[in-house]
């Protein structure tokens, strides 16, 4: 509802409303206004949505964590330390002693092995993060084993780069769950999955007391937590879909944090001295892509021309202001080997020359599937105008998220605009999706973004596979740099921006953390003056 929001902002401005912050929320509770209609489960073995990952990040502990200020620094969380076998195919994790779950049950190596095995056996969407190491439902009990009260052995089919393995252990799917509690709630051998979808069995700083879909999430301090206990007794997320309403609630002091303000609202609240803003670059990219099944779009010159027909700077200053920064490579800033050059800018003459070379001096007609939400829809409109300068008439086909996605996954689009978030902090996650397509047939089993755009990548496939086996980190980084440059120059992806997340907080909120991913948006340290 962009017009609605614009209008509201204008009204507020005209009326000269300045609402004093009243801090009406309870002193021991953090209240956030947030759109979390994507949450469909609380089971860490199934969670694969951004909002769900954030809730899990605050309530479960994973095996490994990373420094949110320097993603390249890994540290143990539930694991105290780890060692790698000589052949590089086995990692042994030593588990911290004396930890407890919120239920009071002790946390042992058994729980860790159970959690990872469970994720593989349940085989929900994020299970591949663990199974990609050659682990299957059949062999998982041998491959992931507790070999003592506080020791877990993780065996793989190949000597993968250890950093790759460890980053996968920082993902939500590697959260440690309370095996005893889950077995008590097991039904038909489902590892307690049905129960855990709406309940809690973790050891994190907060425990989840209640989740009502599209309404509220209530987290309470876990007094059994092994780390520094949260200062606040409760953290509550309220689902507020309308961003203008979020702003109102924040300014009235009915919430402490507004999480989804639009660019104009951020602009407006930044003038309010009772409100502070916090920003973090996220591992999410905004891009549009060209389906290579379309003969025109498959021409290399056309692919290149498109990259010169986007006014990146203008969009960054308007629609994406406060929401994103220019970025053109497939690894977001902060990832190992990320390329931060932005060689492409709007150059109509060059684009026209390329189009002429491709045999389309007068341009052509094309469609773009666009999800009708901001900022995607706004970006699509801007791109439409930019492409027109080069003679390309682009028709926007609006739809809701599931609709456009269905078409995209069926490879029936011409152009598709969307966003892509990294699944874990290792560069392989995006290298695989943007640069790997081992079987370009319609039935191809690996449905990466390269596959969705029917882009055949025989050479890149080999590079992607080689990079996860490279144990020399510097060499590995170089491999990803090369792949990014290759995809940037020849690929069917026009990568434009990296997402910046902005939270608007009441002035009295301290130590609120926005990390590089959603599961590192942490409220455990928050206090209120």
């Amino acid at each position: 509802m962009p017009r609605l929001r614009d209008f509201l902002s204008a009204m507020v401005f005209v009326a000269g409303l300045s609402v004093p912050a009243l801090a009406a929320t309870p002193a021991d509770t953090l209240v956030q206004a947030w759109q979390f209609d994507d949450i469909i489960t609380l089971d860490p073995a199934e969670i694969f949505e951004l909002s769900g990952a954030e809730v899990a990040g605050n309530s479960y502990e994973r095996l490994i964590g990373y420094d949110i200020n320097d993603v390249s620094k890994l540290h143990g969380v539930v694991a105290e330390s780890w060692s790698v076998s000589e052949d590089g195919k086995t990692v042994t994790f030593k588990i911290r002693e004396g930890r407890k779950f919120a239920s009071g049950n002790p946390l042992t190596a058994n729980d860790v092995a159970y959690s990872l095995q469970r994720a593989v056996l349940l085989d929900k969407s994020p299970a591949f993060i663990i199974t990609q190491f050659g682990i299957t439902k059949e062999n998982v009990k041998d491959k992931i084993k507790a070999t003592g009260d506080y020791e877990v052995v993780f065996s793989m089919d190949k000597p993968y780069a250890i950093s790759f393995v460890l980053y996968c252990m920082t993902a939500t799917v590697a959260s440690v769950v309370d095996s005893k509690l889950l077995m008590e709630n097991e039904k038909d051998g489902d590892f307690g999955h049905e129960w855990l979808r709406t309940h809690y069995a973790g050891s994190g700083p907060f425990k989840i007391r209640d989740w009502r879909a599209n309404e509220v999430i209530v987290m309470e301090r876990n007094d059994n937590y092994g780390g520094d206990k949260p200062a606040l007794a409760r953290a509550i997320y309220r689902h507020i879909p309308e961003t203008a309403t979020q702003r109102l609630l924040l300014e009235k002091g009915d919430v402490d944090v507004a999480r989804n303000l639009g660019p104009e609202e951020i602009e407006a609240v930044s003038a309010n001295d009772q409100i502070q803003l916090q920003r973090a670059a996220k591992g999410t990219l905004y891009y549009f892509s060209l389906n290579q099944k379309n003969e025109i779009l498959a021409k290399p010159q056309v692919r290149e021309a498109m990259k010169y027909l986007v006014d990146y700077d203008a969009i960054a200053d308007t629609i994406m202001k406060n929401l994103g920064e220019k970025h053109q490579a497939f690894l977001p800033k902060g990832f190992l080997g990320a390329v931060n050059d932005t060689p492409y800018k709007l150059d109509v003459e060059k684009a026209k020359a390329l189009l002429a070379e491709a045999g389309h001096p007068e341009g052509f007609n094309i469609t773009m599937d666009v999800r009708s939400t901001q900022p995607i829809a706004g970006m699509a409109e801007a791109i439409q105008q930019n492409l027109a300068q080069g003679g390309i008439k682009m028709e926007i086909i609006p739809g809701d998220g599931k609709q456009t996605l269905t078409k995209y996954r069926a490879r029936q689009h011409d152009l598709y605009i969307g966003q892509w978030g990294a699944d874990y902090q290792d560069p392989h996650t995006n290298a695989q999706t943007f640069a790997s397509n081992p079987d370009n047939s319609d039935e191809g089993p690996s449905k990466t973004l390269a596959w969705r755009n029917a882009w055949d990548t025989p050479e890149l496939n080999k590079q992607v596979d080689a990079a996860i086996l490279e144990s020399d980190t510097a060499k590995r980084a170089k491999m990803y740099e090369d792949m990014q440059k290759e995809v940037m120059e020849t690929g069917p992806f026009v990568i434009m921006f990296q997402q910046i997340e902005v939270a608007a907080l009441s002035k009295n909120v301290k130590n609120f953390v926005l990390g590089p991913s959603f599961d590192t948006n942490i409220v455990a340290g928050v206090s209120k003056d």
Partner: protein
Amino acid sequence: MVLATGLTLVRFLLMLAVTLVGLLAMTFVIGRLVPIDPVLAVVGDRAPPQVYARVRQELGLDLPLIQQFWIYCKQAITGDFGRSVLTSNPVLEDIGRYFPATIELATLGTLIGTIIGVPLGVFAAVRAGSLLDQIVRVIGLVGYSVPIFWLGLMALLLFYAKLGWVAGPGRLDIAYDYLVTPVTGMLLVDSLLQGEIDVFWNAVSHIILPASLLGYFSLAYISRMTRSFMLNELTQEYVTTARVKGLSESRVVWRHALRNAAVPLVTVIVLSYATLLEGSVLTETVFAWPGLGAYLTNSLQNADMNAVLGATLIIGVTFVGLNVVSDLLYRLLDPRTRTP
């Protein structure tokens, strides 16, 4: 009367059955025709193909359409609408949770609309052409033509943000949440039943704005209809007769004319109630009101087909039910309609 009621019941059941089957078939077909893949709602964007295939099978989407429909009908008859993807709960349980919030809001809205709308309409009719009549007509026009979400945001800005007279979006302040255990699901009722007076007043301060807004919306309609029904009655002979007999004007208007105008008016009020029950989606969004409208919109956007089908059915049943109620009331109020 007994016979008439019996007939109505039979008609009701027939109408219900036909409507249900029709609704089931229509929503089912639409649900399957829309270019949205319900499997995606379950597995998300990045699930590997084998997970996708398994879920597709679990949802029964690999079966022929007619078989899928048959299975769905069989389940629906037993009240099993399946599980909602979004909430992880059985759809029926979700409806039990979200519908009371909508009922509470729509009921209060209709009450407000009726209590104010009927007298306004009567006055406007009695003084047709006067300034008061003009004002009532303008009020009606505005209520009818201004988008309700816009009015909602403006009302929030004024009464909540600027004046601070009422509480903001949501059903309760955070501090009062969890003090009341849901019995009817309607907070105003539950809080009174459990003697939680603070919670009651807090709930009132939250509901008053959205309910007034819906009230205004139905007031606009109700007052306009009242006016036209009354104008019609006031020109009837029995009114003239009553006046000739020397009855006071207020007695003529309120006792005689309104009583007769009430017959069609009841239908108007009941239908406007039904409209509020199904159509408060935008209000629920603006006020972050966790009702059935919000539930349905959300499910639609997320291709959560079980929830969409379940919620649509419930709304359909309610609509049929309210139609029958208005029918019955019509018979009660107007003896002429009772003769078969």
